[in-house]
């Protein structure tokens, strides 16, 4: 038995890492070359679904990721309209994945970027993410399934790509009803062409290689299959080396860019995100890619994430970053409302996990 080296996944990881470094250099916030949760949150604010003035922007990276995956799927003949696998549950799970990720301040991809930048506070998130995945895997082994999807007309598959094209048009003409941050992370962004091209390239490669942040750890545990994990590691190694070369590697556990050191809630937030990602069949990045390939269920999941982000910021559920202003340290963290939301999310996932167990073809 010879195991092939997964060059395509490794290439995707390296390109994703390089793109993240370029985007950060070009204006994105620190360790935030990509962050699916943060960028969907910015889009949510950009179209006025939440009113947190510091996190509102139409992120071209998201548009590029979906359209890049869509174009690659069309070229390869893999674009198929597919839907019908418990979309309402997926919407709810997507919303809570977002609540968990925003409590931590980053999706699984940004978690890797934070680690590669020396952000030691992200270790709590990584541990939580792994535990969340293990819990999800336990339910998969017990027979959890959200049920099958069905082939549908291609128009269903074009819903999210069409929304992304619409957002791109809005971003180009900048109508007055959109919101754009003037300070804070939302105001920090690479120029539109750079961000869009980075998204397109990574989206196309991620479609081809099936890169998934949750899938790597899941497959390692479930099947002893390290295929996807190599992509996860390639991103980390690329970003680590890149940050070292650029002099941006800053190993510390305090005052990291857009991060807090509330370890317990970083852990639980990412446990929620990891568990939810396993139930959904992939991390937030993978959901974007699947939606680009024509998967209507993943499109609904992304809409759930956008709504979850709106709730997270309208009700103060998202984590607050540590700050150093004029030499004065202000500790960030997750407020009581955010803690309640994370616990509620864990309870909801437990209910969904148990309610969707199948054994011998029968639902319990």
């Amino acid at each position, binding site marked *: *038995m010879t*195991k092939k080296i997964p060059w395509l996944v490794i290439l995707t990881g390296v390109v994703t890492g390089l793109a993240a470094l370029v985007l950060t250099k070009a204006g994105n916030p620190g360790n935030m070359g990509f962050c699916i949760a943060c960028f969907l949150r910015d889009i949510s604010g950009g179209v006025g679904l939440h009113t947190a003035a510091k996190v509102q922007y139409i992120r071209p990276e998201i548009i590029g990721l979906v359209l890049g995956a869509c174009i690659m799927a069309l070229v390869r003949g*893999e674009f*198929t309209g*597919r839907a*019908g*696998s418990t979309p309402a549950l997926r919407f709810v799970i997507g919303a809570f994945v977002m609540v968990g990720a925003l409590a931590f301040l980053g999706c699984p991809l940004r978690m890797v970027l934070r680690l590669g930048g020396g952000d030691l506070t992200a270790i709590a998130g990584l541990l939580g993410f792994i535990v969340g995945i293990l819990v999800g895997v336990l339910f*998969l*082994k017990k027979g959890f*399934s*959200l049920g*099958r*999807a*069905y*082939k549908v007309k291609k128009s269903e598959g074009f819903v999210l790509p069409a929304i992304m094209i619409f957002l791109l048009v809005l971003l180009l003409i900048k109508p007055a009803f959109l919101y754009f941050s003037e300070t804070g992370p939302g105001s920090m962004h690479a120029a539109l062409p750079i961000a869009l091209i980075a998204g397109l390239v990574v989206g196309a490669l991620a479609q081809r290689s*099936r890169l*998934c942040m949750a*899938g790597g750890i*899941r*497959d390692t545990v*479930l*099947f*002893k*299959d390290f*295929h996807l994990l190599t992509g996860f590691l390639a991103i980390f190694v690329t970003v680590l080396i890149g940050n070292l070369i650029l002099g941006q590697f800053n190993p510390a556990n305090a005052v990291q860019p857009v991060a807090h050191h509330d370890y317990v809630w970083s852990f639980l937030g990412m446990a929620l995100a990891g568990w939810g990602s396993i139930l*959904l*069949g*992939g991390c937030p990045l993978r959901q974007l890619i699947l939606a680009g390939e024509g998967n209507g*269920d993943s499109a609904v999941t992304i809409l759930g994430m956008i709504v979850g982000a709106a709730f997270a910021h309208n009700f103060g559920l998202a984590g607050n970053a540590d700050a150093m202003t004029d030499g004065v340290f202000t500790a960030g963290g997750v407020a009581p409302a955010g803690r309640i939301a994370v616990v509620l999310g864990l309870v909801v996932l437990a209910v969904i996990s148990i309610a969707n167990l199948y054994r011998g073809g029968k639902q319990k």
Partner: protein
Amino acid sequence: MIDARGLACPMPVVMVQKAVKDGAPATVEVLVDNQCAVENITRYASNQGYRVSVQEQDNEEFALTLTK
């Protein structure tokens, strides 16, 4: 015949894994409807020592035959 059509990743592989672990059959037949599932099952089955043949059908479905 395992019918894994319409199921999201990694469910098709989980179903194959269950069949393989339950009795290590000499032949396993699987029906899927997306390329990702074909790749994942092929990788898993190869790692378990199975040979995999894939037959693409007219309706964008794939019949996989795993043999020891």
